[in-house]
């Protein structure tokens, strides 16, 4: 099957403050299948956010090609169709809500698409329900918690009926409760609505349930695979300054001490099980 997202040797350069050319993306080739839940990790400046903005045609490659559902992002005529296909949620929950009432904000996207009012109303109600915010339809955004605001932002994207949702560090500014809310919403949308998810983060815990984890460093993909495959590479991850979950680190350390512990431990229960089996 044709991958829904396809990047072919994508390069992206920009000028820094000092006027030097910096390669934010340095030859990224990547296929993402419909319905996949992909998590991209990497530290600040690794190019992960630049990559995200390419998926929504907010940025276009300096060289190489990005196809979203077969549409080349350099094609001006397809711009709006691409943006509707791949919706985007940003880091700061405050700076992406436009309207003073939750439901009006969710309606913003469909209104831009020029849909008839009854259809917008139907979509808004559905989207708010999908993120569990229907009680807050009439609330003002600034009375909501960070996690709730992000869910409203997600609903705003959902109401445009996208096939892909790209989330650019949506949890970076949230507390643990807010992070959990957002992650549960995202997983729900992937599993039950079949939406392809590209989730960008530097919290490793959020990658545990992904279908695929991609590690970026200096504009390149340095590691990819299932969460188990990626997290078992403790040394590589540490070298590029990324964290591994405490249990994975524990497994790594115990293994180094000569114990027979699998390296791909991701969850507390698995760790307990592995130690008890010794």
């Amino acid at each position, binding site marked *: 099957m044709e991958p829904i997202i396809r990047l072919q040797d994508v390069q992206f350069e920009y000028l820094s*403050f000092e006027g030097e050319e910096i390669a934010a993306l340095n030859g990224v080739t990547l296929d993402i299948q419909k319905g996949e839940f992909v998590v991209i990790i990497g*530290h*600040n*400046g690794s190019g992960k956010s630049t990559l995200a903005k390419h998926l929504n045609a907010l940025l276009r490659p300096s060289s190489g090609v990005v196809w979203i559902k077969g549409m080349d992002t350099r094609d001006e005529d397809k711009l709006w169709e691409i943006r509707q296909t791949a919706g985007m949620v940003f880091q700061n929950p405050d700076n992406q809500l436009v309207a003073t009432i939750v439901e009006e904000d969710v309606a913003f996207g469909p209104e831009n698409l020029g849909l008839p009012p009854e259809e917008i109303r139907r979509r808004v109600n559905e989207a708010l329900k999908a993120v569990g915010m229907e009680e807050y339809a009439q609330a003002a955004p600034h009375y909501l*918690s*960070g996690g709730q605001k992000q869910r409203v932002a997600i609903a705003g994207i959902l109401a445009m009926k996208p096939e892909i949702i790209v989330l650019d560090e949506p949890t*970076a*500014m949230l*507390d*643990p*409760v*807010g992070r959990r809310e957002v992650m549960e919403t995202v997983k729900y949308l992937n599993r039950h609505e079949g939406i392809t998810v590209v989730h960008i983060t*530097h919290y490793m815990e959020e990658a545990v349930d992904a279908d695929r984890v991609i590690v970026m460093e200096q504009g390149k993909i340095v590691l990819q695979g299932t969460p188990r495959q990626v997290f078992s590479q403790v040394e590589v991850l540490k070298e590029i*300054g*990324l*964290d591994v*979950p*405490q*249990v994975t*680190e*524990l497994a790594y*350390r*115990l293994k180094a*001490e000569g*114990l027979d512990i699998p390296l791909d431990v991701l969850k*507390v*229960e698995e*760790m*307990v099980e592995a*130690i*008890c089996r*010794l």
Partner: protein
Amino acid sequence: MPIIVEHLTHVYMPGSPFESLALDDVSFEIKDGEFIGLIGHTGSGKSTLVQHLNGLLKPTSGRIVVDDIEITSTSKVPKRLRQHVGLVFQYPEHQLFEETVYQDIAFGPRNLNLPEGEVERRVREAMALVGLDFEAIKDRSPFEISGGQRRRVAIAGVLAMEPSILILDEPTAGLDPKGRDEILSQIKNLHEQRGMTIILVSHSMEDIARLVDRIIVMNRGKIALVGKPEEVFSCVEELHAMGLGIPQITQVMRGLKARGMDVPDNIYTVDQAVKVILERIRGKKNA
């Protein structure tokens, strides 16, 4: 100098329809040179609490004593309190405004009317404390350096006031693991080498567990739990009810204990866990 808080209550916008009780009869003491972790989810009252400690907010009732300075609902806050108690807000880089890094860090000392020589000494020292290279960065604009550096410039701006108590509200929010570890190790140094009293507000149980002497857990404007990390992390049910978790390692230890293994359940770092598990496993094999 110790901090004493007695029956501190704070009500926001009293008498309006938006009236809310942010702090409800809070009492505690912090000893000289202690490293305190302050935990609680958003809206638990921790930000309101720390703003009282340097007089940015005044109690509705109750009192706070820092050194010999007493603050009650009626007292006038002396300027020197702000100097004694340094407060680093969340996302402190949002307060930078000067043309150069040097000027920005010098803002605090200049407000204290210090001679220029002393200002420079303090700027140099503050930059060294947060690991910034004075010569390389002093004349650059704070808006063209990296996010992690900006955060450190902002922290240096508070350190240049030479406070003896330093409060940091989520100093690692939004930073990546590398930036986070750098900042946390510098804070640890301030505590160990300078003997500063530190109050670290954080959501991360793992970070808190690694660093602090004592934890204060806030919930709905009250102090819910106080104690050493191992004491606080043993109250799993209470923490869970407040929407807070415990470090993964502590969860593993509790899991092992539930399965009948003789391990302490008050362990919260990977190092401790490795040691204990190795002892048990090797002990079992030798027996």
